[in-house]
């Protein structure tokens, strides 16, 4: 538990991690169809990681994390995916935790970090609002300081898994007079407080990955402010850090291509040169995405920092994911009319599920249009 993981070679670390995961991640949780399972559904795995001290790969060890370097973290993520481990509700580990570690008071750290690790607090993240979309700076949910409490009013939307969370960290406007990006603060809110209402939103796949969260005169203690008042914009942006690279990881198209393979095998499509030609383009796009991803991973491994240019991976991987699932529907032929999974030899392929799911990543996490705007300005230095 107190080992310095970073002192191991990559191969050693990979082997140790892999062996333990194989032994401790229950088979029935591996390769789940559900992309965002609830805490209750994956509690066993969450708790196993927690007990082992492997729940928070990048937190410093003094806070109960593994203190992994970016290089080792990359291996952790790779093996997690390769072994088909389910996604856990990870906003506490990935966002609130790092935010508190960097900007929280000692009291906040002492209060919240252990409860994230224990699973007592499941966090969600209140960024987007109905009118904001990719333009976060336009948010309108307000918090007014009264008698050592903030009184919050407003609405958040696209809050992932809010219906199974008990804490939320929200971006609120604390100064209406300031310029859009000023006057924003970060507050930690107990979702069991009066005035907090959660409404799950069904998505195209009929699942409820995200919610609306309403705040109606919700009173939270002033000490739940993170960092300085009106400085929330900077905080919110900074917690993303090197994890941005994972938005561009080939994970989703890789999975989808694997399913396309399976379906194509079952249908004998590899004997059709027309399919093969289209498949080959998708296969090579995925392969080349791997080469480009590796280039950035290498930078991280050697201790470098990533620039804005890494966003090209997010665009490429999300659009490739879509193209693969569209090919899957084409291959399905008239079976593309079904909403459920398709038979494919010994097993099923969730073609429609993937097709619909693939609509999301190109929109969320900053739409691909926003990403291209950023690249045009920050990387290509185009005018206007």
């Amino acid at each position, binding site marked *: 538990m107190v080992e310095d993981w970073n002192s191991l070679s990559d191969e050693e670390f990979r082997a140790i991690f892999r062996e333990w995961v194989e032994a401790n991640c229950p088979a029935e949780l591996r390769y789940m169809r559900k992309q965002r399972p609830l805490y209750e559904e994956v509690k066993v795995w969450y708790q196993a990681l927690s007990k082992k001290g492997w729940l928070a790969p990048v937190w410093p060890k003094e806070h109960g994390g593994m203190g992994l370097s970016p290089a080792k973290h990359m291996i952790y993520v790779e093996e997690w995916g390769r072994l088909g481990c389910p996604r856990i509700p990870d906003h506490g580990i990935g966002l609130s935790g790092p935010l508190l570690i960097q900007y929280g008071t000692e009291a906040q750290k002492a209060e919240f970090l252990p409860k994230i690790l224990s699973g007592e607090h499941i966090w969600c993240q209140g960024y*987007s609002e109905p009118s904001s*979309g990719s333009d976060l700076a336009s948010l309108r949910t307000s918090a007014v300081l009264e008698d050592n409490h903030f009184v919050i009013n407003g609405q958040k939307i696209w809050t992932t898994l809010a219906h199974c969370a008990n804490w939320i960290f929200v971006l609120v406007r604390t100064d209406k007079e300031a310029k859009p990006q000023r006057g924003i603060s970060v507050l930690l809110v107990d979702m069991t407080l009066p005035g907090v209402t959660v409404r799950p939103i069904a*998505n195209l796949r009929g699942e409820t990955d995200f919610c609306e969260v309403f705040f109606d005169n919700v009173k939270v203690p002033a000490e739940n402010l993170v960092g300085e008042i009106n400085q929330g914009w900077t905080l919110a942006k900074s917690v993303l850090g090197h994890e941005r690279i994972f938005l561009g990881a080939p994970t989703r198209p890789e999975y989808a291509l694997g399913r396309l393979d399976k379906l194509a095998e079952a249908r004998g499509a590899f004997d059709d040169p027309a399919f093969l030609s289209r498949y080959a383009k998708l296969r090579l796009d995925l392969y080349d995405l791997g080469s480009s991803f590796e280039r950035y991973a290498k930078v991280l491994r050697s201790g470098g920092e990533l620039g804005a240019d890494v966003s090209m991976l997010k665009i490429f991987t999300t659009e490739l994911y879509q193209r693969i699932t*569209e090919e899957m529907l084409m291959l399905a032929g*008239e079976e*593309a*009319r*079904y*909403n459920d999974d398709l038979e494919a030899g010994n097993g099923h392929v969730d073609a429609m599920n993937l097709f619909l799911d693939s609509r999301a990543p190109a929109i969320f996490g900053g739409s691909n*249009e926003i990403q291209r705007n950023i690249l045009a300005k920050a990387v290509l230095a185009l005018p206007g």
Partner: protein
Amino acid sequence: MPQMVLDDDDGVIAMLRESVAAFAEGRPGPQTVRSIRTAESDMDKAQWQEMAEAGWLGLMLPEALGGAGLGIREQAVISEALGRALVTAPMATASVLASALIAGSQDSEERSRLAANLVSGSSIIATAITDDIEASKLIARAADGAIYLDGRREFVEAAHAAVDFLVLARLGDEDLLLSVPAGSQGLQLIDRPGVDGATISSLIFTGCRLDMSRILARGDLGGLVEKAIDLARLALAAELSGIASKAFEMASDYTKERVQFGKPIASFQVIQHRLVDLWTEAEFAGSAVVNAIERLGEGDEKAARLAILAAKARASDAAFLIGRRAIHLYGAMGFTDECDIGLYLKRAVNLGAMFGQAEKLRRQFVSLERAA
């Protein structure tokens, strides 16, 4: 708004369009889609009945059989309007395809009964025929003055609502077109959810016994069935064209309302050019359907066939593309189930896959054209 541009000297086209729009106002399509889905049903029978009352069912049946004796032009106008309003009734199969098969059958009591039922909407006729006509044929054998059917047919719409099924079968060296009563012994239904919410069924025939009177036509029926499917394809093309057109408009309207960075997103050049391209696709779909209607009216069978293949391919690609892009233009809202735009996309996927996906139809077009 992109739609079929047709001469309308007598105002019939406009009238049909208005009647569908008025119908959809009273019975909004998306609402019906959701209620069918929630009920895990295969269709909305009350809606169908109202469509019959509006005179839209079997309208291409000859007047002698109780139909309106109208043509594919009027059918296409109605289908396009239904597509726009997302009225997801099984128009292409239970009305267009069924009508064409009945019209092409020999005169018989059974035929008259079916025609009357179709037009009145009083009992529904499902078709168990796909574009793979050979594979659509059940195995028939004749014994003790009856016909026995075996085999399995996929992708049947409205199978639970149906009172009769139209099926093809092979008896010795001739084809049979038959009507099978729902609930027949030896007929089993297996259901699967369809992408647009309505259940799609497979029919399993195990020694299913039919009266000889159930034979509607016999002999080499390939030509009859092929032409009937072509009419269904054209109706689908029109419906898809309507879906494409409306989904485009919804996306275009949304981008005008949606403000980001202080401006409606429709003012961003990238969004504008994308909308122009989608609009072009929708316009092309409409023109392709009009072209098919005209070729069909000219009597050159091959030219008509080519035009129909092209129209269905174009319209389904347009609806599929526009549906996908529209969801993206709606942003996170587009990814929710409560936003209607997703229903348009799903409907486009469903209709696009009926009687041949675009790629398959394009290949058929080229082989037919080159076979000259």
